[in-house]
């Protein structure tokens, strides 16, 4: 049985190689951008469902549901719970389609389909994966959730196998191998279905992996295209004459990546693609970002290291790059550029613009025109960011502060860099409310000492090259809604991407590592590492409701409607990078070695355990809310 499966996988791998060879030799495969998931474009508009990680293709994580509002949110309470039976870090969130919920877990990547009426398990899928994939995953064995399309549920397994499961039965429709864990390639991302293709990424930035984004045919799992992040133009699906550099608004020209590396270093150049993907059906463009370049020791890899740390806009049918922009050229701090690219339409300088907004690990929030990448606003979204003073809007490059540069400082300890490698925000996705025009951003407030060291590349082995010490950031905070005693490591903020202003800040003891949710009821939700699910007023940041779930929250808060009631669900389960940074407590350098500042360790607040908690209002309160909103709309 096992050997049969292995053979099947081998055959698929061979098929994938064959397809890529065809592509390379210039034979263009017939494009069938049929109606497959134009139904997804329609389906996403129904706020009763939550059918993709971001709620909708735009990644806004906003719901039109308003039964839960600022008046009644205080009366929320848990309706039902579900243990996944897995202890490691639970990122991602539940998908809901009709009367069924779909959730996935960290390794071994179980998938559960749960009946919303009976709360019973409709079907369960658990892949057999070699446990040797576990230590090849840099920061815990997280999985950021599932994708839906064409009657199938898609799971991106840790061992890089992309699996299509029948939505009704959980039976495997096809499997496709996307990488090789023995070379350091693993996967953590949620796939995204666009038309007749499933888009997925690759992890392994700490193992010298050369990153790529891949599209598989939704029918049979055969590779449609693959776009590398570094290397020759054709392998990156960059057209030197057509692909636009967002800063110059001119074509990037020939060999723009190769010229930015010394020798063959692009082959272990990083630029992995483990973040979230968004899509604009009108412009027909797919948006995503790439991760850190090769080793964390910048001195070992001269050049801009293109296209690590870059936002790409690509055609989802062909993979061809329309435009690109590198946020952090020649990274010196591990500020991956993978964070979600949120698509919004807002007015800037009196003009309605199609925008893409992203909160980069490097501490700057970028507002760009999503049609061509033009840089409109780039501001710090945490006042303590210090490695650069600003982004030069003419060159698009950060104005760096030499004191915090780690370049040319092998075996020197560079201290007090903000943010830490975790970034001012990591993968935890922000949300946007079209009602307030504000972004709600879960952020880290952590700084670091960074000591680059020489490192040699061995396939399948960690390729890091730096020793880090991380600790809470300084006390400064913009427009706080309340006071916080002691050292804080997180802030939940409301941010105006048209002006670059932080409207309000909620201080949090630990990094806010949970995906946020904004709703038409003017209630914004997020989770904390201690395990609190919090509901706050979208205008003021005032706390409306708080509930301590069984474990720390690094998952995303999602919402849906079932039988006339609005539900809010979130996975708890402490872990992920937050689990490593916080589990043992961070060292405060100002308090001397061995001491910690005035805060207690996370372990004093929560323990491991994957549990889904679903919240709703009492029936009478929900009915009252519906009645008054009907009156209001009349």
């Amino acid at each position, binding site marked *: 049985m096992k050997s049969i499966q292995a053979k099947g996988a081998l055959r698929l791998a061979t098929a994938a190689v064959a397809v890529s060879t065809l592509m390379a030799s210039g034979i263009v495969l017939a494009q069938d951008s049929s109606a497959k998931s134009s139904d997804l474009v329609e389906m996403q508009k129904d706020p009763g469902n939550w059918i993709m990680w971001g709620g909708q293709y735009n990644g806004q994580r906003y719901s039109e549901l308003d039964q839960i509002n600022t008046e009644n949110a205080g009366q929320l309470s848990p309706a039902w719970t579900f243990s996944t039976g897995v202890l490691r870090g639970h990122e991602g969130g539940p998908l809901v389609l009709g009367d069924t919920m779909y959730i996935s877990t960290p390794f071994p990547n179980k998938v559960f389909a749960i009946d919303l009426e009976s709360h019973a398990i409709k079907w369960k899928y658990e892949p057999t994966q070699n446990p040797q994939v576990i230590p090849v995953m840099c920061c815990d064995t997280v999985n950021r959730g599932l994708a839906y399309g064409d009657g199938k549920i898609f799971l991106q397994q840790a061992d890089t196998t992309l699996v299509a499961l029948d939505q009704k039965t959980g039976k495997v429709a096809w499997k496709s191998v996307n990488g090789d864990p023995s070379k350091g390639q693993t996967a953590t991302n949620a796939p995204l279905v666009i038309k007749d293709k499933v888009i997925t990424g690759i992890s392994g930035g700490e193992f010298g992996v050369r990153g790529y984004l891949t599209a598989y045919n939704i029918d049979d799992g055969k590779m449609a295209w693959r776009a590398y992040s570094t290397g020759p133009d054709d392998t990156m699906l960059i057209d030197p004459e057509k692909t636009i550099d967002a800063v110059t608004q001119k074509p990037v020209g020939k060999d723009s990546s190769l010229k930015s590396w010394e020798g063959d270093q692009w082959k272990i150049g990083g630029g992995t693609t483990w973040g979230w993907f968004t899509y604009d059906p009108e412009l027909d463009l797919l948006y995503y970002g790439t991760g850190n370049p090769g080793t964390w020791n910048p001195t070992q890899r001269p050049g801009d290291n293109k296209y690590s740390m870059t936002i790409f806009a690509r055609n989802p049918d062909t993979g061809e790059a329309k435009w690109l922009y590198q946020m952090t050229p020649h990274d010196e701090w591990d500020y991956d550029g993978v964070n979600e690219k949120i698509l919004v339409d807002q007015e800037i300088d009196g003009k309605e613009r199609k925008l893409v907004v992203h909160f980069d690990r490097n501490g700057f929030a970028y507002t760009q025109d999503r049609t061509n990448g033009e840089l409109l606003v780039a501001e710090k979204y945490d006042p303590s960011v210090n490695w650069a003073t600003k982004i030069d809007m003419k060159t698009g490059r950060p104005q760096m502060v030499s004191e915090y540069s780690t370049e040319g400082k092998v075996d020197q300890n560079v201290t007090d860099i903000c943010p830490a490698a975790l970034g001012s925000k990591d993968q935890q996705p922000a949300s946007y409310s079209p009602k307030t025009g504000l972004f709600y951003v879960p952020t880290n407030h952590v700084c670091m000492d960074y000591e680059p060291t020489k490192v040699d590349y061995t396939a399948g082995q960690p390729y890091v090259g730096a020793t880090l010490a991380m600790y809470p950031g300084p006390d400064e905070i913009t427009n706080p809604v309340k006071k916080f005693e002691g050292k804080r490591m997180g802030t939940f903020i409301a941010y105006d991407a048209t002006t670059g202003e932080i409207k309000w800040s909620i201080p949090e003891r630990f990094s806010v590592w949970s995906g946020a949710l904004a709703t038409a009821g003017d209630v914004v939700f997020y989770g904390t590492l201690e395990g609190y699910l919090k509901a706050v007023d979208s205008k003021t940041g005032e706390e409306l409701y708080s509930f301590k779930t069984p474990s720390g929250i690094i998952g995303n808060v999602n919402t849906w409607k079932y039988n006339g009631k609005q539900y809010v669900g979130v996975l708890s389960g402490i872990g992920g990078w937050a689990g490593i940074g916080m589990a*043992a407590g961070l060292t405060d350098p100002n308090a001397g070695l061995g001491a910690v500042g005035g805060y207690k360790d996370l372990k004093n607040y929560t323990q491991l355990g994957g549990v889904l908690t679903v919240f709703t209002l009492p029936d009478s309160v929900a009915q009252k809310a519906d009645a008054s909103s009907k009156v209001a709309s009349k």
Partner: protein
Amino acid sequence: MTRTRQTITAVLFAVATASLAGAAFAADGDEPIVNDYSSMGAEYGSSDSDKADESKASVSNDSSASSSTSAAVEGDDEGNPYKVDCDGEGSCKVSEAVMIGYEKFGNHCAQCHAQNAEGSTFAPSLVQRLKGMGQGRFTAAVAGGVTRLDSTTGQYSVMPAWSENEDVMSHMQQLWAFLKARSDGALPAGRPQRMDNNG
């Protein structure tokens, strides 16, 4: 039916790996591995609180005494592989071996075991695990890796084998020195300083 078989296969695999590792350790004369999951995920962080470290920091080894050990790594007079000299404020100077061990640990091990070797939600605290662990067993575990299936949770803990990694293998003494200093409570959490004369 299928599921049962998979589970059995997995268990057999784990047992096979464990017994292989056991054979390697047996040559060292050390105890076989006793599965202790207290700090492997079910209860991460365990008891290595900073308070404990602080109190022990005062039991620092006296580095002023000259050492005449012939080992590759110079230690102190009590047979420890490290020298640590902490002042009252918790600032510590350490021998060259500990310093290199700290750096190599940060480079290769801290991604899972955390910057102070106190573990994460997915890897054990080495401050705890090294208590009572001999150098032979430590070396075998690093070189050969460890794969364990916790039968109570059905979940794997996997330490990769480092035998092919030259940078790790050629610094095993220094890694041992650093971790032993941490585990013995001689060296508190944080970045230490090199001793002036590398004593």
